[in-house]
């Protein structure tokens, strides 16, 4: 091939690439526009009219919280046990689900020499199905069997977590450098030992970030499950929001606690990751 034909080829390739991005952008606009059209035709009031009232409710909550003054902090303290219950549900669910996710992830990664290879696709399908069920549905089902308590909520969140984190973890595994694993294989290390020393030290910092992000997501998920009787901060939120006017200060206190805990988790996450990445060697 001469330089001229290569140049023409490159120009043609460039044109094709531009065409693809244009089509992509047009498709996205079409999807957004049709989605908006569908939504506004199905709603009773139009979206834009609703938008004007959108800030009324939050405004009311803030005003009531302001009026409560120092009583607001008393409310925050009062709801602290509810928050702790929610954090408990989320924490236990993340730990149990995370542990299951680690096992699933190692068995579902294509680059780690899992034998026979059929295990990999079976485990992946298991993780897919675990993610397919919304937490809320599993929780409702379990509450129906086990009764209203934090345990069904914990199981429901853990179940989803195992599937979701398992997928993310296995993707991290698949980006791991193969050289250390091969080095250990050449020493005669067995599969578990290769995973423990060849893969785990490489992937642990990323596992930890995903784990903490999931904990954050699970705090929110556990709060939502309170709406269906799983206890914790969600049960309180349902009560105060359900009452509508008058409980704005309580709602504000609950949101305040939720936001605070997410801040705390985020800080903790960066701190732990920092230590793991740049701190002392070993794991």
């Amino acid at each position: 091939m001469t330089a001229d034909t290569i140049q023409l080829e490159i120009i043609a390739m460039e044109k094709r690439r531009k065409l693809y991005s244009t089509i992509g952008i047009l498709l996205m606009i079409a999807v957004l526009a049709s989605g908006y059209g569908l939504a506004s035709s199905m709603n009773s009031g139009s979206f834009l009219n609703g938008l004007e009232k959108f800030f009324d409710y939050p405004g009311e909550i803030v005003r009531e919280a302001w009026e409560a003054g120092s009583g607001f902090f008393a409310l925050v303290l009062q709801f602290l046990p509810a928050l702790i219950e929610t954090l408990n549900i989320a924490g236990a669910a993340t730990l149990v689900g995370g542990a299951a996710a680690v096992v699933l992830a190692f068995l579902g990664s294509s680059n780690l020499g899992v034998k026979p290879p059929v295990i990999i696709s079976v485990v992946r399908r298991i993780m897919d199905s675990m993610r397919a069920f919304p937490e809320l549905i599993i929780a409702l089902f379990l509450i129906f069997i086990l009764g209203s308590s934090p345990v069904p909520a914990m199981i429901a969140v853990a179940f989803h977590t195992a599937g979701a984190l398992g997928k993310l973890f296995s993707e991290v595994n698949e980006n791991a450098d193969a050289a250390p694993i091969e080095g250990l294989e050449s020493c005669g290390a067995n599969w578990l030992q290769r995973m423990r020393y060849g893969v785990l030290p490489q992937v642990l910092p990323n596992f930890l970030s995903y784990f903490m992000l999931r904990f954050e997501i699970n705090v929110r998920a556990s709060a939502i499950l309170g709406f269906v009787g799983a206890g914790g901060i969600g049960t309180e939120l349902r009560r105060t929001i359900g009452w509508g006017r008058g409980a704005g200060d309580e709602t504000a206190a609950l949101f305040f606690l939720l936001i605070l805990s997410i801040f705390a988790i985020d800080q903790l996450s960066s701190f732990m990751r920092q230590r793991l990445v740049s701190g002392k060697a070993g794991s």
Partner: protein
Amino acid sequence: MIVNELSKHFGTVTAVDAVSFRIEAPQMVGVIGPSGAGKSTMLRMINRLTEASQGSIRVNGRDILHLKGKEKRRWQRDCAMIFQQFNLVPRLDVVTNVLLGRLNGHSTLKSLFSIFGKSLVEEALAALDRLGIADQALQRAETLSGGQQQRVAIARALMQKPKMVLADEPIASLDPLSAEKVMTSLREIRTRDKLTVICNLHTLDTARTYCDRIIGMHKGRIVFDAAPAKLTPDVVRDIYGADHALDESVTSTSIGERSAGADPVASDVKMAS
């Protein structure tokens, strides 16, 4: 060790083509040849990292190509391997990396919680000391220079208490001084521990300087197998398939001129007598 008609096919490509040779007494064997000649594949088949397509490798009467599970891993421990890219665990400290050489023979449960008793740690430190990098024992492997990392890899190999050492281009990504240290350490495994060392090399003068025997490979076949002295320019041209004589001094990585006194092979002979 008797290698007989060893072959490896990747699809329609034959990487190693019916290779046969035997190693009776401990010796240092240098394997030379152009890239793609099958040198790495051959070493990887001996260590069982790559499965052979045909042939046999007999060690003390048994064909190690047919070992499975536990016995295969035991064989892998017996023939330690050193890689061009070191293949250490970068995020673990140096002494742990060396300890990992003994994972085989260590109970899985114990090793999962990294309980390597005191005596093993002492052994690992002794191995590091022998290679002159005991001071770096607690640093992460990734913070070391290439030459140091390769010496950690050699320490790990020693930790395996191997019966043979394979080295796949051990100095190809090192500077000349580090390369010399690494080759000297490998030579020492041959003289001090009395083990066979098989070493793939790119530089001819390294092969001449450190090896007792040179195997030349071309397109998967062995085309030369003799003492370094027999490696004439004509033979070299055949191995590399060049149509003109190669000037070794152009690709040489040795420091200064070689003299008889500094020749490791010569000095080993003196020590042995």
